[in-house]
């Protein structure tokens, strides 16, 4: 039992009763980092001096009667594609290895308002492209449950840091599964909100029609608190949804009687590991025992999602990453012959293989003569995938299935075949294309590695997802397991 095994409310009670100080919490984070980080490698940059001085300021405030922020005193890690003023933000790319942002992302401003303490910036696949964190241009992150295995990705550092107790909570970003899949592999809770719920201002863009920021936490209740702190309309993000934000914490009633659950047969089919299916079936029995009903349904276009996603996401990426030209920021190549050569050399030296591969794919798919065949076709298939979800949600409250078809895989085992790697996201990608919210919650173990249950909701109905996940968690013990590090 460590401090970070306490729930947010328990920590806040102990802070109020002076049993704990914010400095104790920051000590806890850096203690675990000193003990474990050389093996886990979750962070790219640590910000200890600032964290300790922020902790002191918050401890002073603790003595006063001033109102405290929602996430008061909690040590937080932030994925390294979310800009932090004055704190190096690299996207795990050599291109941005020297980049110090001059402003905060909206979510970072919101965390500051909620009075959490930023510990550092977390490792990821370069520019969020990958599912294993092996594409980081600095070093791979390791899975705290077994250091020979990947933590998943692209938010692998964010998931591993929470699992290893090196942060109380973290922020990740999800484009095709990059919060949910690493949360599943690392045995923690990861929530991808509805597209538009959380501002993307200050999130370095990968695929703008899909990217969303969300929390990774040890339990569902904490995820509700972090979401409460970061959700909301932002005029700086033109795709931000102007809706009223519900009270996510009061949604955690524990009551799921009469809930109608859909289980897509495509999510329980061939290619899904039998041990994963078994954990999901056992989870459905838990939900049933709590008064929910489930039925098998079909999302018939599931098998087309990965192909559509890679065309769309890569096309958007090829356009978004055009800004990295070595002119205004980032690493500029030495001795260019002229301006064009400066672009070419800086980009060729700055980007890693997977990033180049996706830029190439996207540029091809958008190039003259191929646009209709690839990009437009993929956008139309996206409509069919979205309709699948609309139809199921007309009759059911939530959709439940595995988060990933397998548990974590061995480091190095899939690096040679990009297509195999892409198929790890087969159960998270359709959700991203439909833009609906989904959460991964620990639901079992297979050969010592965690399995995640994916709970998918209607647009902007995070409350129901959190309520179901919270009720499930309260009746299971999986989330209480800790890796033996």
């Amino acid at each position: 039992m460590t401090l970070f095994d306490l729930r947010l409310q328990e920590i806040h009670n102990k802070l109020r009763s002076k049993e704990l100080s914010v400095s104790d919490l920051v000590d806890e984070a850096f203690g675990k980092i000193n003990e474990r980080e050389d093996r886990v490698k979750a962070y790219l940059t640590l910000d200890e001096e600032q964290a300790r001085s922020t902790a002191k300021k918050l401890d002073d405030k603790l003595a006063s009667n001033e109102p405290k922020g929602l996430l008061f005193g909690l040590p937080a890690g932030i994925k390294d594609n979310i800009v932090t003023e004055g704190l190096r933000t690299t996207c795990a790319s050599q291109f941005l290895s020297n980049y110090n942002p001059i402003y905060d992302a909206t979510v970072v401003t919101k965390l500051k308002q909620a009075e959490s303490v930023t510990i550092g910036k977390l490792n990821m696949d370069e520019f969020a492209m990958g599912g294993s964190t092996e594409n980081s241009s600095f070093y791979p992150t390791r899975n705290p449950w077994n250091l020979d295995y990947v933590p998943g990705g692209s938010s692998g550092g964010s998931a591993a840091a929470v699992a290893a107790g090196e942060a109380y909570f973290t922020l990740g970003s999800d484009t095709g599964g990059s919060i949910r899949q690493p949360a599943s592999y690392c045995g923690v809770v990861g929530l991808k909100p509805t597209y538009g719920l959380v501002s993307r201002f200050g999130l370095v863009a990968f695929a703008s029609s899909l990217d969303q920021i969300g929390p990774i936490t040890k339990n569902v209740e904490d995820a509700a608190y972090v979401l409460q702190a970061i959700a909301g309309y932002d005029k700086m993000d033109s795709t931000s949804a102007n809706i009223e934000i519900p009270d996510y914490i009061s949604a955690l009633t524990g009551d799921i009687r009469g809930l109608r659950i859909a289980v897509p047969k495509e999510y329980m089919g061939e290619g899904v590991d039998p041990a994963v299916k078994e954990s999901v079936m056992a989870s459905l029995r838990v939900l049933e025992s709590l008064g929910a009903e489930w039925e098998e349904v079909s999302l018939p276009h599931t098998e087309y999602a990965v192909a559509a996603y890679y065309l769309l996401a890569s096309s958007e990426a090829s356009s978004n990453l055009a800004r990295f030209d070595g002119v205004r920021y980032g690493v500029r190549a030495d001795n260019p012959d002229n301006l064009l050569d400066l672009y070419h050399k800086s980009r060729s030296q700055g980007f890693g293989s997977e990033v180049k591969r996706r830029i190439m794919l996207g540029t091809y798919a958008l190039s003259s003569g191929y646009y209709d065949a690839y990009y437009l076709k993929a956008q139309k298939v996206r409509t069919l995938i979205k309709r699948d979800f609309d139809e199921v949600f007309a009759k059911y409250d939530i959709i439940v299935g595995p988060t990933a078809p397998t548990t974590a895989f061995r480091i190095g085992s899939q690096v040679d075949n990009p297509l195999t790697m892409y198929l790890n996201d087969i159960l998270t990608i359709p959700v991203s294309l439909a833009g609906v919210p989904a959460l991964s919650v620990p639901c079992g173990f297979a050969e010592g590695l965690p399995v995640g249950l994916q709970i998918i909701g209607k647009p902007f109905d995070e409350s129901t997802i959190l309520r179901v996940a919270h009720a499930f968690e309260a009746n299971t013990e999986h989330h209480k397991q800790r890796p033996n590090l």
Partner: protein
Amino acid sequence: MTIHVKDVEHVAKLARLNLNAEEEQMFTEQLNAILQYAEKLNELNTDDVEPTTHVLHLSNVMREDEVRDSLPIEKVLLNAPDEEDGQIKVPAVLE
């Protein structure tokens, strides 16, 4: 549709990337494999299907045309690889 090395060279030029011979070969093979997989989408008839560019039904999000302060120039230049007289410096565009 198959991609040849010359297509990869063309796309690399559009994407402002220099690839060596080995990379050209690797990307030719990998892009062919990925695009072959993407051919799967042609199993679906999408003649009467509208494309989804975006899941939120937003269009033309406008703001008031008000004059605001820009980022201070000295901060903007903090990350510039090269600068002169408060401006970002690049090699000559015209010979």
